[in-house]
């Protein structure tokens, strides 16, 4: 079967690509659009390393088909820093040593940003449950959770 021709928006820019029916959004991002910041840890929606925003909603891009994003807008880790300046979450993760190997970090950051957009002053429990879909094997989550809460405080101050 012929590939599908898809037009969508990624990190604000218009993109068009061809994809097979079974290709996931993650495959398209990584292999076709060369946006390798989203990671594949499981391909089954269990690890969250491929987290992206689809029309403002947090999704695992390994569970979305490439064809499904036609006419929609995708935000990935590559779109998080604006110009020269890192997002407050990115800055706080560096300051707090909230990453070790860094493979889960893009997904965790995308998910954390989504949390703070709907809940600017989350409790520790809220952060922990919101990030329960993002596996991290290195940190034990302590510094990640602290960093998200500290970044939230920074962002509230504007």
């Amino acid at each position, binding site marked *: 079967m012929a590939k599908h021709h898809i037009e969508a928006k990624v990190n604000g820019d218009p993109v068009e690509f061809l994809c*097979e029916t079974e290709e996931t959004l993650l495959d398209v991002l*990584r292999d076709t659009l060369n*946006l*390798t*910041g*989203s*990671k*594949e*840890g*499981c*391909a*089954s929606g*269990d*690890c969250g*390393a491929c987290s992206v925003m689809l029309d403002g909603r947090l999704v695992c891009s390994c569970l979305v088909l490439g064809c499904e994003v036609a006419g929609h807008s995708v935000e*990935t*880790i*590559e779109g*998080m*820093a604006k110009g020269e300046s*890192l997002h407050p979450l*990115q800055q706080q*993760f*560096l*300051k*707090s*040593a909230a*990453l*070790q*190997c*860094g*493979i*889960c*970090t*893009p997904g965790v*950051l995308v998910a954390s940003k989504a949390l703070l957009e709907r809940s600017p002053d989350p409790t*520790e*429990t809220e*952060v*922990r*449950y919101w*990030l*329960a*879909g*993002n*596996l*991290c*094997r*290195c*940190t*034990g*989550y*302590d*510094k*990640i*959770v*602290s960093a998200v809460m500290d970044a939230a405080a920074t962002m509230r101050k504007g």
Partner: protein
Amino acid sequence: MADNKIGADHKIGAETNGHTDGQSNGAHYVGTRTIRPDGVDKVTGRARFGADYNLPGQLVGRVLRSPHPHARIVSIDTSRAEALPGVKAVVTRADFGDQPSEFIPAGEMMMNYKDVVRNVMAREKALYEGHAVAAVAATSVAIARKALKLIDVKYEVLPHVIDVVEAMRPDAPLLHDDLFTVGVEPRPDKPSNIAKRLEIKVGDVEAGFKKADLIVEREFKTAPVHQGYIEPHAALATVSEDGSVELWTTTQGHFIVRAHCARLLGLDISKVRVTATEIGGGFGGKTVVYLEPLAIALSKKAKRPVKMVMSREEVFKASGPTSGATVRVKLGATRDGKFTAGFAELKYQAGAFQGSPVQPGTMCAYAPYDIEHVHVIGYDVVSNRPKVAAYRAPGAPISEYAVESVVDEIAKKLGLDPIQLRMMNAAREGTKAAYGPKFGPIGLEETLNSIKKTEHWNTPLRKWQGRGVASGFWFNIGGETTVSLTLNEDGTVSLMAGTPDIGGLRAALASVAADELGVPVEKVRPIIGDTGSVGFNFLTGGSRSAFSGSMAIVEAAKQIKSELVARACKLWEAKPDQVEFKDGAVRPLGALAEKVKPMTVAEFGKLSGKLGGPIGGVGRINAQGAGPSFGTHLVDLEVDPETGRTTILRYTVAQDAGRALHPAYVEGQYQGGAVQGIGWALNEEYIYGDDGKLQNAGFLDYRMPVASDVPMIDTILVEVGNPKHPYGVRGVGETPIVPPLGAIANAMEAATGIRFTELPMSPPKVLKALRDKGLDKA
């Protein structure tokens, strides 16, 4: 930089061992929380991990894996796959020459190329479900998948054995008909699945048990658990017509990958250039080769680059978890709590090939304690499971869990405080460990004392809640290490290490280089060099990379400093005793100081072309003197009697770091190790069906801790300096996974009154135990 220097919150311990070099006394960065140099790339998605590398014209490589846990491979016909348009290469056992049986040390483990070649590609038999049988390279994923289906493998299915105790029975299905138990006299005349018996014996345990007023003997079982790194194995290889190889792979040791690939494929080491990509977790599991030799073999045939990435299912089924085990412990103590004798028998699963971490398991079992009579026996047993790989303090969590459980039971029976009992028997400076050496300065007592002083230890608990404590030990290693420092022509410094950075190594090494040379840390740029760019390095493992790397930097910096002093003498027409290197500059002394001004490291760099040429230093060392690290963990938990679910309420880690080069990443090691241990204790396990197939090869059913499963992990950095290291450093990465298993089991006993002797203490098991005692209705 002021923002980066946030002081460590909790630091306890002896004075850090004094560093006599003038520079390090004025340490500016060591011990502070600098921003990691590789950090920005990792928070922006720019960092390139294993699967992020691509080359023009690359092919997709895929592996055909055995569906059977044990089967003879009668024949493999690849002709239909090779005929499929788009298939560029197929490899099988026929493409890898056999290797002689020869054991060589591989860091904390031993290996044998005869087994390695059979593990990367099944030869006579498939020995576990998921064992590689063939591999293809094709122009697309779809074609590669189709090609795998066209490979015709004829299997003669054989009976299989999964459990370690069953595998030891004389009538068990035999994996290798040439495997005769080593370490028993006389040598057995029949092969078996028991590869090795080993023992440690000090004193006379029978005499020791006679002196005991109380003897506790228990048998424990632990399940195999996977390292659980989030990044699957990935490799990209390209082989040119002249036989030179370039390989990008996610590994803890690219020099080791180079050695293995060169050996398995008959290549000159100089022709194999390996780049370690950023690595998405390893924990020991990325110290061996799986895809790399296959990618090279495929690329050699196809004459095009070949990229291979494992799926998560392949990671679980075909890469190494650590051993499951059966452990019997017998410990005797006097009425007032002095241990008189310790015995243990350890049976560790090796997986399909020999080489479980039972040896370190035997050595570690009683290492935290000063006991006169010790006898530990270990068995290395093969069964139809993936070959185990190293996992963070390989072997130690299993044997120390069993011992720490029994120590706790003795404390309870004698009516002693468990910390006091440990203090009474703790190994300290001068203690001769049962496994051989006499300890130098060590920090076990300090960790126990610091735990006892926490508010955590002194907080009351409610019904169904329990508190547990356990200690842990790991040796740590040093080993072959090369680091280069180059003073650039603008005065900045390039640092090249050769041990992959998994958790902040570059940050720690940059601080050491900056302090040694007296330059701002942001002027030092650390990278991990490929095998063609930096001298030989053993892998990142054994908690060695920061320990050995910082030692090598001191050596490299010494060379630069003496070169700068020599150049200053030449320039100033001075004698060496008229100048000194201090605070980042060569300084004139005495009368000379009135004639010339000090010259900074940066100034020498800028003038290097005029003053004698390039400036650099290379530290090439075989690092010795890795000081062991002891830790003590404290945990509170609550058991839900209706569901059997256990919630970790509070957790504190105290561990001796010697000297924390970068306190935040040392804390990170403590926290991460503790949470991996929580997973091991409560949920993680390989579950097999009667058919010998793994039933939970995915993150949904292999249940690792998620953020909502755990509380904050409090850390106490104990610093009892290691006198063998210029900064007093000890390795810190592995010890943190040792105490959690025992600490949690002890807390479970405190919460329920039940001594759980089988890991994981998962909800169904806990609920059954509560029901059996009628406690679920309480």
